[in-house]
């Protein structure tokens, strides 16, 4: 396969990975105040794990999301005795989502996404020029 076509595979894998990262960020921000998740426990912030993965027949590497892990940060305790989810001492366990961190993550992911679409556009232009050789 042409090496220029590999650029699409590489940038495509990065787009995929960055959009997954954006997805988890959206999920974290949406659930920043979810006292109970699907399992009845407070929501825990999710983070994606990126790994460089070789592209077939090339020295270059694409990106792969190897997993989505729960953040190990401690849950945020809020004193609110009136809340039905409060424990015996009146504290409610809130999700360990750090909203500032998530916003930074979101911006970083969207910039990386943009970078990779630029890469794809450039590769597309170059391939088109290549196809027009001799015309």
């Amino acid at each position, binding site marked *: 396969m042409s090496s220029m076509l590999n650029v699409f595979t590489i940038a495509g894998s990065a787009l995929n990975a960055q959009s997954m990262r954006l997805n988890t960020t959206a999920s974290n921000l949406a659930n920043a105040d979810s006292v109970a998740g699907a399992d009845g426990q407070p929501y825990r912030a999710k983070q994606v794990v990126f790994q460089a993965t*070789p592209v077939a027949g090339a020295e*270059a590497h694409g990106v792969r999301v190897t997993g989505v892990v729960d953040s190990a940060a401690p849950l945020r305790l809020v004193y609110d005795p009136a809340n039905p989810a409060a424990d015996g001492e009146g504290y409610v366990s809130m999700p360990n989502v750090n909203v500032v961190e998530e916003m930074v993550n979101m911006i970083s992911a969207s910039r990386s996404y943009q970078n990779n679409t630029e*890469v794809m556009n450039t590769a597309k232009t170059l391939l088109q020029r*290549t196809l027009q050789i001799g015309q």
Partner: protein
Amino acid sequence: MKALIDNALSFHQTALNLQAHRQQLLASNIANADTPNYKARDIDFRSALQGALGERLGPLALSTSSARHLPVAGAASLQGYIGYRTEFQSSVDGNTVNMDAERAAFAENSLHYEASITFINGLLRGMQSAISGQ
């Protein structure tokens, strides 16, 4: 018999081939800008081109990760010309991609690629006008 046009084109063909490979490596650096412990890589273009021209390199070798993969006949490997970038600023996660440098190199390499295509087009146009005898 090696035709005149073959000789004229082989330099640009080799350069184009290398530029396409470099583009791929740079794309890989940009794609892995957020991957922990990824080390940015690039081709030493000058020596790779000299090596490629010296060996009259045909197709570039595919990397084989298994003993059952078939090698490309007569192919030369670029492996020896690929190096790791020296980092300007170290990051906590061990990633050495400097996005500014990568974007600049990517744009530069695209221009070089287009230049090679322009040269090839010019050569072909020259040959065309020579054979049409006008």
